[in-house]
């Protein structure tokens, strides 16, 4: 007999730790982010997409609300709200504009959080004041033409030149690259596939840093994805992030946070798609107001709604683990895997259910935007690999 079984009191007395509700504090934060998304993003997102225009003003307004400092420690002027709060905020933003969403996500979860964890006091003192208010936006330069999923295959070279390093070699697919002022750059300081990689903090204004080709993409067109050219860039040794030769570990540090960001983006897109479907089906009623929507469409709505709730719990669970400093690799991968697949399914269903009218306007943009979620921060099969390794190691 366990304590619970021998208890005689009613179960309502049990202090149940398990719960699925946000605190009032987080709910208020969620409402704030939703209000921002609905007023500052939703009315303009379609035009930004069509014109592939970076939403500078909206990002500034996000900064004014503190959305760009949620991973910055309080001693450096940030709010350090943690992963769960970030996920809640990002879902709201992405439900309106995934281009803004990924801009915020990269700045917070790949740049600021990395600086917070790996940076020296001097680095933090120097960069956080600029990053926290959006004066500077951060970008993360890991990918190259020959290294996507296989990040350790990177070839961008950092040559030790005494008191500084000299970095050479282009970086590809850099989100917000053309708008950012600070780059986290991963470059090769040695031959070892893994231990030969070092992370650097590189400023946009330094000589040799240039913007290369801008990608023309299926979606998230208001988020510029560019090549970053690094040609003989002199980087003082004080701008090594973490230790020399530990860059791959530094990069690994960002994986879970980045994946939670994209999981949250996926949730936002999926929710938007489901809302679109629901509103469409709600207009289909008979004279007595009874729904006349096709069973096929109603069933699809049901499946999507259930998956949305499930994916949100997967995401928030991983965020809570991470907030507690616990390992959450497989859990974050599960969230990203399932949420990104859901976002795509939901968006495609929205197009189907809206019919020809869904071929232009909100539904088709959802479908184009959603497609990136299965690709960046580790393609879907990489998530499966991470989860399977975790399972086989259990």
């Amino acid at each position, binding site marked *: 007999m366990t304590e619970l079984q021998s208890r005689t009191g009613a179960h309502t007395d049990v202090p149940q730790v398990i719960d699925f509700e946000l605190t009032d504090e987080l709910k208020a934060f969620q409402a704030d982010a939703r209000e921002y998304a609905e007023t500052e993003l939703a009315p303009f997102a379609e035009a930004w997409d069509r014109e592939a225009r970076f939403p500078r003003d909206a990002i500034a307004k996000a900064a004014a609300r503190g959305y760009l400092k949620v991973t910055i420690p309080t001693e450096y002027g940030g709010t350090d709200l943690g992963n769960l709060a970030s996920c809640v905020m990002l879902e709201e933003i992405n439900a309106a504009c995934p281009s803004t969403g990924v801009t915020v996500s990269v700045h917070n979860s790949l740049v600021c959080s990395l600086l917070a964890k790996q940076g020296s006091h001097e680095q933090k003192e120097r960069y956080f004041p600029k990053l926290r208010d959006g004066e500077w936006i951060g970008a993360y330069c890991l990918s190259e033409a020959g290294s996507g*999923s*296989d990040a350790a295959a990177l070839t961008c070279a950092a040559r030790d030149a005494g008191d500084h390093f000299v970095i050479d070699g282009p970086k590809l697919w850099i989100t917000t690259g053309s708008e950012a002022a600070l780059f986290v750059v991963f470059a090769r300081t040695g031959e070892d596939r893994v231990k030969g990689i070092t992370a650097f903090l590189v400023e946009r204004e330094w000589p040799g840093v240039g913007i290369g080709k801008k990608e023309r993409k*299926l979606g998230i067109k208001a988020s510029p994805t560019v090549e970053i050219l690094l040609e003989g860039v002199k980087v003082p040794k004080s701008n090594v992030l973490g230790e020399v030769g530990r860059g791959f570990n530094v990069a690994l540090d960002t994986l879970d946070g980045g994946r939670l960001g994209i999981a949250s983006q996926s949730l936002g897109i999926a929710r938007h798609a489901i809302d679109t479907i629901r509103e469409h089906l709600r207009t289909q009623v008979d004279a007595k107001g009874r729904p006349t929507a096709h069973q096929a469409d109603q069933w699809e709505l049901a499946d999507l709604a259930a998956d949305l709730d499930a994916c949100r719990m997967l995401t928030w669970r991983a965020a809570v683990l991470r907030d507690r400093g616990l390992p959450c690799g497989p859990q974050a991968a599960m969230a990203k895997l399932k949420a990104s697949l859901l976002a795509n399914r939901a968006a*495609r269903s929205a197009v*189907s259910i809206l019919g020809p009218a869904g*071929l232009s306007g909100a539904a*088709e943009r959802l479908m184009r935007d959603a*497609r990136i979620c299965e*690709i960046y921060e580790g393609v879907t099969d990489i998530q499966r690999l991470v989860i399977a390794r975790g399972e086989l190691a259990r």
Partner: protein
Amino acid sequence: MHNFELSEEQAMVQETVRKFVDDVAAPQALEHDEHGRYVEEGFAALAETGMLGAAIAEDAGGAGLGMVSLVVATEELARGCTSTARLFLDAAGLAGKALEGLPAAAELLGGVLTGEVRIGFVGPEHGIVARAAGDGVALDGAAPFVTGARAAQQLIVCARLDGEQAVVVVAADAVEVAPLEPGLGFRAAAPGAVTLAGVTVPGDAVLARGEEAAAAISRASLAARIGGAALAVGSALASVEHARRHSEERIAFGKPLARQQAVGHKLVESRRRAEAARHLAWHAARLSDLGQDAGEVAELARLSATDAALHAADEAIQIHGGYGYTVEYHVERHYRDAKTLEVLDGGALALRDALAARIAAQAT
């Protein structure tokens, strides 16, 4: 792997179109799509090959090579340029087949088959309503996505007139055609949103009504299903081929992507669906050419083929990774076009309803 036997003339259609695709359509596909630029010259060149009339009966001015020739041509076109394939299908299939048996439309059909008259086809799924107005009729309704609409001189409109079906021709400049920006797919096929707000046409613009119109619409519908299936099959095979090549070239974790079991299996599944759909499409075309009822197989073919095309493009994007999300690797274009095709001509749900009705109608 196939031995779909073609007649000498059908094989010539295939060869002609293949050459046109290689020389003209494929090289321009990316750029036209990206800028939403109508493939005007390409379509004109295609019309010049005489292929628009391949599937049309000889007594109606065509080459009489049957639906198999439509399938062959559409499949080939879609491998290179899905937008051109769609415009071809609109003219050579939907409009061509609708007009084929209508004496009143002989001249119009001639213009369509030579490419002199660019048309847009507004199918019955849009529920356009016609009513008597003076000596002619007035048309009301809207079609949110009509390929070719922005380049069309004439619109062929399927409408309901006094409880009957009717086929009406309307000058494109008499109606409102709004551009679709950006619009999901078929961006180089000049798609537009057509609004018919009480536009009136003279009596002789009603090309057919009653049973004659129903038969015309039925022919167009069959062409949309069989030809649409062929378009999707061509797109699916193209996606598989793009992905296969990329997976051979791209090295990750020390070996070509193609050596990863998960990548190989993606290609297999995409090809499996494409080949299964392809057999159904060809079978439907053959049944039709034999004068047999091809309706059910055509519906199965189109459902299978659009599913195959979307699946193949989706997996091709995934195999390409970041490259697949950019406009330079063709596969995002196939992804958009495949989804767009799925929604057009009545959409997949209507096909499922029609097939369910067939099953329910079976004797027990």
